[in-house]
Protein backbone atom coordinates (compact mmCIF):
# COMPACT_ATOMS: atom_id res chain seq x y z
CA UNK A 1 0.00 0.00 0.00
CA UNK A 2 1.93 3.10 -1.15
CA UNK A 3 1.41 6.26 0.80
CA UNK A 4 0.69 8.51 -2.13
CA UNK A 5 -2.12 6.31 -3.47
CA UNK A 6 -3.51 5.95 0.05
CA UNK A 7 -3.44 9.70 0.72
CA UNK A 8 -4.94 10.66 -2.63
CA UNK A 9 -7.63 7.97 -2.45
CA UNK A 10 -8.67 8.91 1.08
CA UNK A 11 -8.90 12.56 -0.01
CA UNK A 12 -11.33 11.57 -2.78
CA UNK A 13 -13.40 9.43 -0.42
CA UNK A 14 -13.47 12.36 2.00
CA UNK A 15 -14.67 14.80 -0.67
CA UNK A 16 -17.23 12.43 -2.17
CA UNK A 17 -18.76 11.18 1.07
CA UNK A 18 -18.17 14.36 3.12
CA UNK A 19 -16.27 12.56 5.87
CA UNK A 20 -13.16 14.26 7.37
CA UNK A 21 -9.88 12.75 6.08
CA UNK A 22 -8.68 11.94 9.61
CA UNK A 23 -11.77 9.80 10.27
CA UNK A 24 -11.24 7.50 7.27
CA UNK A 25 -9.33 4.29 8.03
CA UNK A 26 -8.36 1.47 5.64
CA UNK A 27 -10.58 -1.00 7.52
CA UNK A 28 -13.68 1.17 7.06
CA UNK A 29 -16.45 -0.28 4.87
CA UNK A 30 -17.88 2.27 2.42
CA UNK A 31 -21.56 1.56 3.00
CA UNK A 32 -21.70 0.41 6.62
CA UNK A 33 -19.01 2.65 8.18
CA UNK A 34 -18.82 5.68 5.87
CA UNK A 35 -22.52 5.97 5.02
CA UNK A 36 -22.10 5.72 1.25
CA UNK A 37 -25.32 5.03 -0.60
CA UNK A 38 -24.91 1.58 -2.11
CA UNK A 39 -25.60 2.94 -5.61
CA UNK A 40 -22.82 5.52 -5.16
CA UNK A 41 -19.95 3.05 -5.56
CA UNK A 42 -19.84 3.62 -9.32
CA UNK A 43 -19.34 7.36 -8.73
CA UNK A 44 -16.46 6.63 -6.37
CA UNK A 45 -15.00 4.28 -8.96
CA UNK A 46 -15.18 6.99 -11.65
CA UNK A 47 -13.50 9.42 -9.25
CA UNK A 48 -10.64 6.96 -8.68
CA UNK A 49 -10.33 6.40 -12.44
CA UNK A 50 -10.09 10.14 -13.00
CA UNK A 51 -7.58 10.72 -10.19
CA UNK A 52 -5.24 7.88 -11.12
CA UNK A 53 -5.91 7.86 -14.89
CA UNK A 54 -6.84 4.17 -14.91
CA UNK A 55 -9.73 2.02 -16.12
CA UNK A 56 -11.32 -0.22 -13.52
CA UNK A 57 -13.22 -3.40 -14.29
CA UNK A 58 -16.74 -2.86 -12.92
CA UNK A 59 -17.32 -6.45 -11.85
CA UNK A 60 -14.02 -6.56 -9.95
CA UNK A 61 -14.63 -3.12 -8.47
CA UNK A 62 -17.99 -4.28 -7.07
CA UNK A 63 -16.11 -6.75 -4.87
CA UNK A 64 -14.34 -3.87 -3.12
CA UNK A 65 -15.99 -3.21 0.23
CA UNK A 66 -13.38 -1.34 2.31
CA UNK A 67 -11.08 1.65 1.84
CA UNK A 68 -8.04 -0.67 2.17
CA UNK A 69 -9.36 -2.97 -0.57
CA UNK A 70 -9.93 0.08 -2.80
CA UNK A 71 -6.29 1.18 -2.28
CA UNK A 72 -5.04 -2.30 -3.18
CA UNK A 73 -7.31 -2.47 -6.23
CA UNK A 74 -6.19 0.95 -7.49
CA UNK A 75 -2.52 -0.04 -7.01
CA UNK A 76 -3.14 -3.24 -8.98
CA UNK A 77 -4.76 -1.27 -11.82
CA UNK A 78 -1.85 1.22 -11.86
CA UNK A 79 0.68 -1.65 -12.02
CA UNK A 80 -1.18 -3.37 -14.84
CA UNK A 81 -1.95 -0.29 -16.91
CA UNK A 82 1.25 1.75 -16.71
Amino acid sequence: MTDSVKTRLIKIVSETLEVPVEEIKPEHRFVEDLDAESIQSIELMAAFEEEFDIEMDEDEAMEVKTVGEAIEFVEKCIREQK
Partner: protein
Amino acid sequence: MSEDIFTRLENRAKEIGARIVFPEGEDDRILRAAAALDKNGIAKPIILGDPAKIESAASACGADISGIPTAFPKESDRLEEMAEAYCAMRSRMKEKIALRLMKKPLFFGAMMVRMCEADGMVGGASCATTSVLQAAGLAIGYEEGVPCPSSVMLMKIPRFLGGGDKFIAFADPAVTVDPSPEELAAIAVQSGCTFRRILGEEPVVALLSFSSKGSAAHAHVDKVKKATELARGMGADFPIDGEFQADAALVPRVAARKIKEESEVAGRANVLVFPDLNSANIAYKLTQYLAGARAIGPILQGFRKPVNDLSRGCTVDDIVQVAILTSVIAGGAH
Protein backbone atom coordinates in the same frame (compact mmCIF):
# COMPACT_ATOMS: atom_id res chain seq x y z
CA MET B 1 -57.00 -15.75 -22.69
CA SER B 2 -56.43 -17.85 -25.79
CA GLU B 3 -53.85 -15.64 -27.50
CA ASP B 4 -50.27 -16.10 -26.30
CA ILE B 5 -49.25 -13.33 -23.93
CA PHE B 6 -46.24 -12.36 -26.04
CA THR B 7 -48.24 -12.15 -29.25
CA ARG B 8 -50.54 -9.72 -27.45
CA LEU B 9 -47.67 -7.75 -25.92
CA GLU B 10 -45.78 -7.68 -29.22
CA ASN B 11 -48.81 -6.18 -30.97
CA ARG B 12 -49.08 -3.58 -28.25
CA ALA B 13 -45.37 -2.80 -28.51
CA LYS B 14 -45.80 -2.29 -32.28
CA GLU B 15 -48.52 0.29 -31.61
CA ILE B 16 -46.30 2.09 -29.10
CA GLY B 17 -43.12 2.10 -31.22
CA ALA B 18 -40.84 2.83 -28.26
CA ARG B 19 -37.19 3.83 -28.72
CA ILE B 20 -35.21 1.27 -26.74
CA VAL B 21 -31.52 1.90 -26.08
CA PHE B 22 -29.14 -1.08 -25.79
CA PRO B 23 -25.84 -0.13 -24.11
CA GLU B 24 -24.14 -3.44 -24.97
CA GLY B 25 -24.17 -3.04 -28.74
CA GLU B 26 -20.94 -4.94 -29.28
CA ASP B 27 -22.64 -8.20 -28.18
CA ASP B 28 -23.88 -10.23 -31.15
CA ARG B 29 -27.03 -11.33 -29.25
CA ILE B 30 -27.99 -7.67 -28.77
CA LEU B 31 -27.37 -6.95 -32.46
CA ARG B 32 -29.50 -9.88 -33.59
CA ALA B 33 -32.30 -8.88 -31.20
CA ALA B 34 -32.11 -5.23 -32.32
CA ALA B 35 -32.25 -6.31 -35.96
CA ALA B 36 -35.35 -8.45 -35.24
CA LEU B 37 -37.09 -5.64 -33.32
CA ASP B 38 -36.36 -3.20 -36.13
CA LYS B 39 -37.26 -5.52 -39.01
CA ASN B 40 -40.58 -6.56 -37.45
CA GLY B 41 -41.49 -3.00 -36.42
CA ILE B 42 -41.76 -4.00 -32.74
CA ALA B 43 -39.56 -1.20 -31.36
CA LYS B 44 -37.03 1.39 -32.50
CA PRO B 45 -33.68 0.16 -31.19
CA ILE B 46 -30.69 2.41 -30.53
CA ILE B 47 -27.33 0.65 -30.25
CA LEU B 48 -24.39 1.92 -28.20
CA GLY B 49 -20.76 0.89 -28.67
CA ASP B 50 -17.62 1.24 -30.73
CA PRO B 51 -18.79 1.49 -34.37
CA ALA B 52 -15.95 -0.72 -35.66
CA LYS B 53 -16.74 -3.45 -33.11
CA ILE B 54 -20.50 -3.17 -33.78
CA GLU B 55 -19.89 -3.46 -37.49
CA SER B 56 -17.62 -6.48 -37.22
CA ALA B 57 -19.93 -8.26 -34.71
CA ALA B 58 -22.95 -7.55 -36.93
CA SER B 59 -21.30 -8.89 -40.05
CA ALA B 60 -19.98 -11.97 -38.17
CA CYS B 61 -23.48 -12.89 -36.94
CA GLY B 62 -25.32 -11.72 -40.06
CA ALA B 63 -27.45 -9.11 -38.27
CA ASP B 64 -28.82 -6.43 -40.57
CA ILE B 65 -28.49 -3.27 -38.52
CA SER B 66 -28.52 -0.83 -41.41
CA GLY B 67 -30.92 1.94 -40.53
CA ILE B 68 -30.58 1.40 -36.75
CA PRO B 69 -29.13 4.48 -35.04
CA THR B 70 -25.90 3.95 -33.12
CA ALA B 71 -23.81 6.08 -30.78
CA PHE B 72 -20.30 5.67 -29.38
CA PRO B 73 -20.38 6.96 -25.79
CA LYS B 74 -16.59 7.39 -25.48
CA GLU B 75 -16.45 9.80 -28.43
CA SER B 76 -19.92 11.28 -28.44
CA ASP B 77 -20.37 15.03 -28.85
CA ARG B 78 -23.22 14.73 -26.31
CA LEU B 79 -20.90 13.93 -23.38
CA GLU B 80 -20.54 17.47 -22.06
CA GLU B 81 -24.25 18.19 -22.18
CA MET B 82 -25.00 14.92 -20.44
CA ALA B 83 -22.30 15.48 -17.81
CA GLU B 84 -23.70 18.94 -17.11
CA ALA B 85 -27.22 17.52 -16.70
CA TYR B 86 -25.86 14.79 -14.43
CA CYS B 87 -23.97 17.29 -12.24
CA ALA B 88 -27.17 19.32 -11.87
CA MET B 89 -28.84 16.25 -10.31
CA ARG B 90 -25.97 15.12 -8.08
CA SER B 91 -24.62 17.62 -5.62
CA ARG B 92 -20.83 17.57 -5.14
CA MET B 93 -20.35 15.78 -8.48
CA LYS B 94 -17.40 17.20 -10.42
CA GLU B 95 -17.81 17.61 -14.16
CA LYS B 96 -14.63 15.65 -14.95
CA ILE B 97 -15.92 12.66 -12.98
CA ALA B 98 -19.37 13.01 -14.53
CA LEU B 99 -17.70 12.93 -17.96
CA ARG B 100 -16.02 9.64 -17.00
CA LEU B 101 -19.40 8.23 -15.99
CA MET B 102 -21.12 9.36 -19.19
CA LYS B 103 -18.52 7.50 -21.25
CA LYS B 104 -19.78 4.26 -19.67
CA PRO B 105 -22.45 2.85 -22.01
CA LEU B 106 -24.93 2.06 -19.22
CA PHE B 107 -24.79 5.66 -17.99
CA PHE B 108 -24.91 7.07 -21.50
CA GLY B 109 -27.99 4.94 -22.20
CA ALA B 110 -29.65 5.87 -18.92
CA MET B 111 -29.00 9.58 -19.60
CA MET B 112 -30.56 9.19 -23.06
CA VAL B 113 -33.67 7.88 -21.30
CA ARG B 114 -33.52 10.67 -18.73
CA MET B 115 -33.20 13.29 -21.48
CA CYS B 116 -36.10 11.76 -23.46
CA GLU B 117 -33.89 10.63 -26.35
CA ALA B 118 -34.95 7.05 -25.66
CA ASP B 119 -38.11 5.67 -24.03
CA GLY B 120 -36.47 2.79 -22.18
CA MET B 121 -33.20 0.90 -21.68
CA VAL B 122 -32.41 -2.81 -21.78
CA GLY B 123 -28.97 -3.85 -20.45
CA GLY B 124 -27.17 -6.46 -18.40
CA ALA B 125 -26.21 -9.03 -21.07
CA SER B 126 -22.57 -8.64 -20.11
CA CYS B 127 -22.61 -6.92 -16.72
CA ALA B 128 -23.98 -7.42 -13.21
CA THR B 129 -27.57 -6.49 -12.32
CA THR B 130 -26.08 -4.10 -9.74
CA SER B 131 -24.44 -2.09 -12.54
CA VAL B 132 -27.79 -1.69 -14.34
CA LEU B 133 -29.53 -0.72 -11.08
CA GLN B 134 -26.82 1.82 -10.23
CA ALA B 135 -26.83 3.52 -13.62
CA ALA B 136 -30.64 3.67 -13.69
CA GLY B 137 -30.93 4.76 -10.05
CA LEU B 138 -28.38 7.56 -10.42
CA ALA B 139 -29.12 8.82 -13.94
CA ILE B 140 -32.88 8.23 -14.23
CA GLY B 141 -33.87 8.19 -10.56
CA TYR B 142 -36.79 6.65 -8.74
CA GLU B 143 -40.46 7.47 -9.10
CA GLU B 144 -41.81 9.88 -6.52
CA GLY B 145 -42.25 8.22 -3.14
CA VAL B 146 -40.33 5.11 -4.18
CA PRO B 147 -37.37 4.45 -1.86
CA CYS B 148 -35.77 1.59 -3.81
CA PRO B 149 -36.03 -0.30 -7.08
CA SER B 150 -37.71 -3.68 -7.03
CA SER B 151 -38.92 -6.35 -9.40
CA VAL B 152 -41.95 -8.39 -10.23
CA MET B 153 -42.29 -11.79 -11.88
CA LEU B 154 -45.42 -12.55 -13.89
CA MET B 155 -46.44 -16.17 -13.47
CA LYS B 156 -48.87 -17.82 -15.86
CA ILE B 157 -50.50 -20.49 -13.74
CA PRO B 158 -52.00 -23.35 -15.74
CA ARG B 159 -55.53 -24.44 -14.77
CA PHE B 160 -55.67 -22.20 -11.70
CA LEU B 161 -57.90 -23.79 -9.04
CA GLY B 162 -59.21 -26.22 -11.64
CA GLY B 163 -60.28 -23.45 -14.05
CA GLY B 164 -58.45 -21.66 -16.87
CA ASP B 165 -54.93 -20.24 -16.93
CA LYS B 166 -54.38 -17.17 -14.77
CA PHE B 167 -51.64 -14.53 -14.45
CA ILE B 168 -50.40 -13.85 -10.96
CA ALA B 169 -47.58 -11.42 -10.15
CA PHE B 170 -44.95 -12.29 -7.52
CA ALA B 171 -42.91 -9.47 -5.92
CA ASP B 172 -40.02 -8.95 -5.30
CA PRO B 173 -38.05 -12.03 -6.36
CA ALA B 174 -34.85 -10.34 -7.55
CA VAL B 175 -33.80 -6.99 -6.08
CA THR B 176 -34.55 -5.93 -2.49
CA VAL B 177 -33.31 -8.56 -0.04
CA ASP B 178 -35.00 -7.52 3.17
CA PRO B 179 -37.34 -4.58 2.52
CA SER B 180 -38.36 -2.28 5.38
CA PRO B 181 -42.11 -1.71 5.88
CA GLU B 182 -41.78 1.51 3.83
CA GLU B 183 -39.98 -0.30 1.03
CA LEU B 184 -42.44 -3.20 1.09
CA ALA B 185 -45.36 -0.77 0.85
CA ALA B 186 -43.81 0.85 -2.22
CA ILE B 187 -43.16 -2.59 -3.74
CA ALA B 188 -46.87 -3.44 -3.25
CA VAL B 189 -48.07 -0.29 -5.03
CA GLN B 190 -45.46 -0.51 -7.79
CA SER B 191 -46.27 -4.17 -8.44
CA GLY B 192 -49.96 -3.37 -8.86
CA CYS B 193 -49.08 -0.64 -11.36
CA THR B 194 -46.71 -2.92 -13.30
CA PHE B 195 -49.32 -5.70 -13.42
CA ARG B 196 -51.88 -3.30 -14.88
CA ARG B 197 -49.48 -1.74 -17.38
CA ILE B 198 -48.43 -5.08 -18.78
CA LEU B 199 -51.62 -7.11 -18.69
CA GLY B 200 -54.27 -4.40 -18.80
CA GLU B 201 -56.07 -6.22 -15.96
CA GLU B 202 -57.09 -4.66 -12.66
CA PRO B 203 -54.61 -5.53 -9.88
CA VAL B 204 -55.79 -6.96 -6.54
CA VAL B 205 -52.77 -6.78 -4.23
CA ALA B 206 -52.18 -9.03 -1.20
CA LEU B 207 -49.28 -8.68 1.23
CA LEU B 208 -48.34 -12.16 2.35
CA SER B 209 -47.19 -13.57 5.67
CA PHE B 210 -47.55 -16.74 7.73
CA SER B 211 -50.40 -14.98 9.53
CA SER B 212 -53.87 -14.01 8.29
CA LYS B 213 -55.25 -10.83 9.84
CA GLY B 214 -53.63 -11.33 13.22
CA SER B 215 -53.81 -15.12 13.44
CA ALA B 216 -50.15 -15.15 14.55
CA ALA B 217 -48.00 -12.68 16.47
CA HIS B 218 -44.36 -12.05 15.57
CA ALA B 219 -42.09 -9.17 14.53
CA HIS B 220 -42.15 -10.53 10.95
CA VAL B 221 -45.96 -10.27 10.94
CA ASP B 222 -45.79 -6.74 12.35
CA LYS B 223 -43.57 -5.71 9.42
CA VAL B 224 -46.17 -6.89 6.89
CA LYS B 225 -49.02 -5.27 8.87
CA LYS B 226 -47.15 -1.97 8.91
CA ALA B 227 -46.36 -2.24 5.20
CA THR B 228 -50.05 -2.96 4.44
CA GLU B 229 -51.14 0.11 6.39
CA LEU B 230 -48.57 2.29 4.60
CA ALA B 231 -49.41 0.89 1.16
CA ARG B 232 -53.13 1.52 1.69
CA GLY B 233 -52.31 5.14 2.51
CA MET B 234 -50.38 5.69 -0.73
CA GLY B 235 -53.44 6.53 -2.82
CA ALA B 236 -53.41 3.57 -5.19
CA ASP B 237 -56.61 3.20 -7.23
CA PHE B 238 -56.75 -0.58 -6.75
CA PRO B 239 -57.39 -2.73 -3.68
CA ILE B 240 -54.46 -3.57 -1.38
CA ASP B 241 -54.84 -5.65 1.79
CA GLY B 242 -52.98 -7.94 4.19
CA GLU B 243 -51.57 -9.59 6.04
CA PHE B 244 -52.71 -12.88 4.51
CA GLN B 245 -51.41 -16.40 4.22
CA ALA B 246 -51.10 -17.33 0.55
CA ASP B 247 -54.18 -19.57 0.59
CA ALA B 248 -56.35 -16.88 2.18
CA ALA B 249 -55.19 -14.45 -0.52
CA LEU B 250 -55.84 -16.78 -3.46
CA VAL B 251 -58.61 -19.23 -2.63
CA PRO B 252 -62.17 -17.93 -2.07
CA ARG B 253 -63.16 -20.96 0.02
CA VAL B 254 -60.20 -20.51 2.39
CA ALA B 255 -60.68 -16.75 2.55
CA ALA B 256 -64.32 -17.24 3.57
CA ARG B 257 -63.22 -19.40 6.52
CA LYS B 258 -60.11 -17.49 7.63
CA ILE B 259 -60.89 -13.84 6.98
CA LYS B 260 -63.72 -12.59 9.15
CA GLU B 261 -63.55 -8.92 8.18
CA GLU B 262 -64.56 -7.22 4.91
CA SER B 263 -61.78 -7.46 2.34
CA GLU B 264 -61.76 -6.71 -1.39
CA VAL B 265 -58.58 -8.76 -1.69
CA ALA B 266 -59.02 -11.98 0.33
CA GLY B 267 -59.59 -14.92 -2.04
CA ARG B 268 -59.22 -12.68 -5.12
CA ALA B 269 -55.57 -11.59 -5.18
CA ASN B 270 -53.63 -11.53 -8.44
CA VAL B 271 -50.56 -9.65 -7.16
CA LEU B 272 -48.72 -11.39 -4.31
CA VAL B 273 -46.25 -9.30 -2.31
CA PHE B 274 -43.86 -11.48 -0.32
CA PRO B 275 -42.19 -10.21 2.87
CA ASP B 276 -38.65 -10.57 1.51
CA LEU B 277 -36.55 -11.75 -1.38
CA ASN B 278 -36.05 -15.18 0.20
CA SER B 279 -39.72 -16.05 0.16
CA ALA B 280 -40.51 -14.40 -3.19
CA ASN B 281 -37.64 -16.06 -5.02
CA ILE B 282 -38.33 -19.50 -3.52
CA ALA B 283 -42.07 -19.20 -4.22
CA TYR B 284 -41.71 -18.27 -7.89
CA LYS B 285 -39.24 -21.06 -8.59
CA LEU B 286 -41.43 -23.63 -6.82
CA THR B 287 -44.45 -22.43 -8.78
CA GLN B 288 -42.46 -22.58 -12.01
CA TYR B 289 -41.21 -26.12 -11.52
CA LEU B 290 -43.87 -27.80 -9.38
CA ALA B 291 -46.93 -26.25 -11.01
CA GLY B 292 -45.50 -25.89 -14.54
CA ALA B 293 -46.10 -22.15 -14.54
CA ARG B 294 -44.46 -19.89 -17.13
CA ALA B 295 -42.31 -17.18 -15.51
CA ILE B 296 -42.03 -13.81 -17.27
CA GLY B 297 -39.45 -11.43 -15.82
CA PRO B 298 -38.08 -10.29 -13.50
CA ILE B 299 -39.44 -6.93 -14.63
CA LEU B 300 -37.75 -3.98 -12.91
CA GLN B 301 -39.92 -1.26 -11.40
CA GLY B 302 -39.55 1.90 -9.37
CA PHE B 303 -37.52 3.99 -11.86
CA ARG B 304 -38.94 7.15 -13.43
CA LYS B 305 -38.61 5.58 -16.85
CA PRO B 306 -38.51 1.89 -17.80
CA VAL B 307 -35.24 0.00 -17.50
CA ASN B 308 -34.86 -3.76 -17.60
CA ASP B 309 -32.09 -6.17 -16.85
CA LEU B 310 -30.95 -9.17 -18.88
CA SER B 311 -29.21 -12.23 -17.50
CA ARG B 312 -25.70 -12.85 -18.79
CA GLY B 313 -26.88 -16.14 -20.26
CA CYS B 314 -29.74 -14.50 -22.18
CA THR B 315 -30.69 -15.61 -25.69
CA VAL B 316 -31.76 -13.41 -28.61
CA ASP B 317 -35.40 -14.35 -27.90
CA ASP B 318 -35.01 -13.36 -24.24
CA ILE B 319 -33.68 -9.94 -25.31
CA VAL B 320 -36.58 -9.42 -27.72
CA GLN B 321 -39.07 -10.33 -24.97
CA VAL B 322 -37.47 -7.98 -22.43
CA ALA B 323 -37.51 -5.20 -25.04
CA ILE B 324 -41.22 -5.88 -25.65
CA LEU B 325 -41.97 -5.67 -21.91
CA THR B 326 -39.93 -2.46 -21.65
CA SER B 327 -41.83 -0.95 -24.61
CA VAL B 328 -45.19 -1.87 -23.11
CA ILE B 329 -44.24 -0.25 -19.79
CA ALA B 330 -43.01 2.83 -21.68
CA GLY B 331 -46.38 2.98 -23.39
CA GLY B 332 -48.11 3.48 -20.03
CA ALA B 333 -51.54 2.34 -18.99
CA HIS B 334 -53.78 0.44 -21.39
